[in-house]
C-alpha cells in the first residue's frame, strides 16, 4: 500500500501541472487579498480608530432595537452583536476584521478554488489512466483493484490537504505583510447561542473555519472521483462535478422552503450554519448534517468501488 501511495504521489508531484496549480493558488490568494484590502467596507471611516467605528455600530444597533421589531431571532442576533462589540471595547481587543486574521478568514472562501483544482487532479487520476491506456499496465500487477483505487483516493485527498495548507499559509503571509504581524495573538470574540460572550484562540478559530469549509470540498472531490470511475472520462468528471457543485450550492436557499430538502447534500455541507446558530432548514442539527454527509460519502464510495473492481477494462 505504501508503494502504491508513492506511485500515485509520484504521478501527481512529478508533473508540472500540479505545481502550476499550487502557484496559481498562491497568485489567486494575493490577488484576492489585495482586492479585499482596497474594497470599501460599510460603517467604516477611512483610517479611523477602530474604537470609534465600534462605538458607532453599537449606537446604531441600540437605536435599531428601540425602533424596530423583527422577531425574537433578530433581536437576539442584534443583542449578541452589541454584547460582542462592547466586550471588544471594554477589554480593548481590536475586531478580527481589522487584524490580519480578518483577511485569513476571508481567504477561506477560496477553498472553492482548492476544490476545483483537486477535482481536476482526482478526476484525472482515474479517468486519465483509461484515456491514456496506462490502466492496462496498472491493473495487471499482483495488487487488488480496491487498493489501487484507495491509493488514488488518498493521494487526491493528500493533494487537497497540501493546497489547503498552501492556501492558509499564503493567506497568513500575505495578510501579515499587508497589516503587519503585530496583532498576531489577538483573541477571537464571539457570542454562543445562550447569549454569553466568549473569547477563543484566533489561530484555532481560523483553522476550524478552514476545516468546516473543507467538508464540502471532500464531498465534491468524492463525487468527482465517482463520476470519473463511472464515465472513465476526465473532462466529463471534471465538468460535471464542478457544475454540480456550483449549481447544487446555488439552489440551497431556494430548496430551504421544502422540508425534504434537509436530506439534500448541499443543505448539509456548510457546517458553519451551526456556528452561527441558524440552520438552513428549521429542525436540522449538526449531528443530523454529519449523518447525512456520511451516508452520501458511503454511497459515492461504494459506487466507485463496485464499478472499479468489477468492470471489464476495454480502454
Amino acid at each position, binding site marked *: 500500500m505504501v*508503494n*502504491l501511495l*508513492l*506511485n500515485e504521489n*509520484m*504521478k501527481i508531484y*512529478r*508533473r*508540472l*501541472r500540479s505545481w502550476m496549480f499550487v502557484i496559481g493558488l498562491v497568485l489567486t490568494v494575493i490577488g484576492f487579498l489585495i482586492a479585499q484590502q482596497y474594497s470599501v467596507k460599510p460603517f467604516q471611516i477611512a483610517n479611523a480608530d477602530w474604537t470609534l467605528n465600534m462605538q458607532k455600530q453599537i449606537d446604531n444597533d441600540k437605536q435599531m432595537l428601540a425602533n424596530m421589531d423583527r422577531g425574537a431571532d433578530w433581536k437576539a442576533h442584534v443583542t449578541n452583536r452589541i454584547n460582542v462589540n462592547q466586550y471588544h471595547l471594554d477589554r480593548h481587543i481590536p475586531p478580527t476584521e481589522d487584524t490580519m486574521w480578518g483577511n485569513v478568514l476571508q481567504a477561506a472562501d477560496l477553498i472553492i478554488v482548492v476544490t476545483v483544482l483537486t477535482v481536476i487532479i482526482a478526476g484525472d487520476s482515474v479517468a486519465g489512466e483509461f484515456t*491514456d*491506456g*496506462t490502466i*492496462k*499496465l*496498472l*491493473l*495487471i*500487477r*499482483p*495488487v*487488488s483493484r480496491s487498493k489501487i483505487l484507495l491509493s488514488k483516493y488518498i493521494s487526491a485527498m493528500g493533494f487537497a490537504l497540501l493546497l489547503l495548507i498552501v492556501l492558509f499559509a499564503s493567506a497568513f503571509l500575505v495578510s501579515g505583510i499587508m497589516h503587519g504581524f503585530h496583532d498576531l495573538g489577538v483573541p477571537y470574540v464571539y457570542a454562543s447561542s445562550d447569549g454569553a460572550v466568549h473569547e477563543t484562540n484566533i489561530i484555532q478559530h481560523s483553522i476550524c473555519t478552514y476545516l468546516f469549509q473543507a467538508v464540502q470540498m471532500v464531498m465534491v472531490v468524492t463525487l468527482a472521483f465517482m463520476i470519473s470511475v463511472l464515465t472513465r472520462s476526465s473532462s466529463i468528471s471534471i465538468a460535471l462535478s464542478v457544475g454540480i457543485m456550483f449549481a447544487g450550492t446555488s439552489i440551497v436557499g431556494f430548496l430551504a422552503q421544502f422540508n425534504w430538502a434537509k436530506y439534500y447534500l448541499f443543505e448539509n455541507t456548510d457546517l458553519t450554519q451551526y456556528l452561527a446558530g441558524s440552520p438552513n432548514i428549521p429542525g436540522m442539527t449538526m449531528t443530523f448534517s454529519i449523518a447525512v454527509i456520511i451516508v452520501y460519502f458511503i454511497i459515492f464510495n461504494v459506487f466507485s468501488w463496485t464499478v472499479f473492481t*468489477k468492470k*471489464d*477494462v*476495454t480502454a
Partner: protein
Amino acid sequence: MTAPILKINNLTKRIGNKLIIDRLNFEVPRGEIFGFLGPNGAGKTTTIRMMVGLMSITEGDILIDGESITYHFDKAIVKVGAIVENPEMYKYLSGYRNLIHFARMVPGVTKDRIDDVIRLVGLENRIHDKVRTYSLGMRQRLGVAQALLHRPSVLILDEPTNGLDPAGIRELRDYLYKLTREEGIAVIVSSHLLSEMELMCDRVAVIQQGKLVTVQTIKEFMSEGTHGSVVFDVDNPDMALQILTEDPSVQARLTEKGLECSLDKEQVAVANGRLIRGGVKVYEINRCSPTLEDKFLKITGGQSIG
C-alpha cells in the same frame, strides 16, 4: 514434457447475449513462442485481456502455472508480463520513473534488476528522458522492459513488432528466442504481420469469430496441403504446356512465374523426363510453399487480418 505454463480451459466470454469467445481450449508449454492469429474482431484481444485479468471470464478458466487467474489473481498474474495493445506509459514521467512505478507494484524487483532490464532493451541513453519524447520503437522497448521486470514465466505481447524497424524486429526476435530457450519462459504473441509469426513462432493458434480454428506447429501449419503447386522455368513454356497436358491427369497453366502445375514428388520427376524428351530446356523446378498469408486466408475465408 513439463506441465504447461498456460492452460486455457473451455474459455467463454459473453457480453449481453453476444458470444465473444466460444469454448477455447489450448495449452502453452514452457520455452515456447506461441502465435495467436485471427482476423479483426475474432476475439484475440478479448482473450488476451482475459489472460491478464482485465476482463472477467464468463465460463471456463485460465491457469497460469496452475493458478487460476480468476480465483488466485495475485499468484497467477505475478508470473505474467504483458503489453496489451500499445505500450502506453506515463508520458509526463521519464522512462526510468515508469519502470520504478511498475517495479514498486511487484515484490522483489531490485534497482539492479531495473538497470539490467534497461540494458537488455538498449535504452540506457534515453532512460532519464520523458516518455513524451520517445519514438514508437523506444516506447515499445520500454513496454518490453516493464513486462520483463519481475522475471515472468509467461510473456504476453500484443502486436510486439508494431513500430519497430527491421533491425529492431530482428533484435526482438533474437531476444525472445533467447528468453524461451535459455530461461524457459513462454511467449505468447499476437501479430498481424504473418511473415513475422512465421519466423518467430513455434506453434500458432488461429481463432475466428471467437472459435478456435486450429492449433498447430508452424511446420505442420506451413506444410499441410503443400503437395500443390510446382513451377517449371523453361525456355519454351507454350511447348512445355502442350507436352505436359498430353497426360489428361495433369493440371497445368501458365503464370507469370512460369509453368505451374499440381504434382506430387514422383510426378515431378516423370513430368521432367517428358519435357526433356520433348526437347524443352528445363532451367529450374521450384515447389512453391504457400506463405502463412495464403494459408491464413484459406483458413479464415479471406477476411481481413488483424
